[in-house]
């Protein structure tokens, strides 16, 4: 019993850290001013939080029941691969549908390129 407790405790603490990361990124989703900064907070924080949680679950079942789940491993891999990609696609769609930047932002490098491209392709 006494030797069994730390092997259970480590993955559960990993899960707890992951949910705290999810919570912090959700606070960022409320407080930040525009869609791009919110995407910055959300994609990094939430991806890291869910990765911590899934790795904690994986380690829990590996230590507790000697169960190597290839499905959970694939799920970790897939989430790690696709969460930043979907954040990129959303911010790209937001920029191309003319969502405003925050008032505090100083520099917009993409604007000149987009205007140039509009003149070239006529759309």
């Amino acid at each position, binding site marked *: 019993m006494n030797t069994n407790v730390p092997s259970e405790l480590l993955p559960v603490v990993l899960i707890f850290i992951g949910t705290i990361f999810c919570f912090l990124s959700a606070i960022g989703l409320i407080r930040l001013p525009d869609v791009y900064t919110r995407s910055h907070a959300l994609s990094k924080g939430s991806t890291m939080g869910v990765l911590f949680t899934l790795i904690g679950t994986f380690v829990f079942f590996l230590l507790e029941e000697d169960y190597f789940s290839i499905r959970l491993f694939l799920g970790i891999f897939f989430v790690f691969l696709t969460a930043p990609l979907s954040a990129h696609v959303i911010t*790209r769609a937001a920029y*191309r549908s003319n969502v405003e930047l925050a008032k505090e932002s100083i520099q917009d490098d993409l604007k000149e390129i987009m205007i140039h491209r509009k003149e070239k392709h006529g759309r």
Partner: protein
Amino acid sequence: MINFILICSLLFLTFSILAISYRLVVGPSAPDRIQALDALGVNLIAGVAIFSVFLRSVAFFEIILLIGILSFIGTIALAKFIERGVVIEHKRSE
């Protein structure tokens, strides 16, 4: 002890889902709402993982993979709809 930590983390996850739903309702533009839906899917994945530890069951791992894939496909489709106006494009003769 372990169940207490798991319940605390479920509580944090509930708070973050409430915050995301606030952004989903209030969000000024359409990409905000899509982003909130994507984050909701990610938090649901974490919730299912915590419940599978809580119930000591390995039956929910397919659900984790499935929610991940469906949330990704839905996000890509909605973003493409906002950007181009159609989801699946047809080849036109020019």
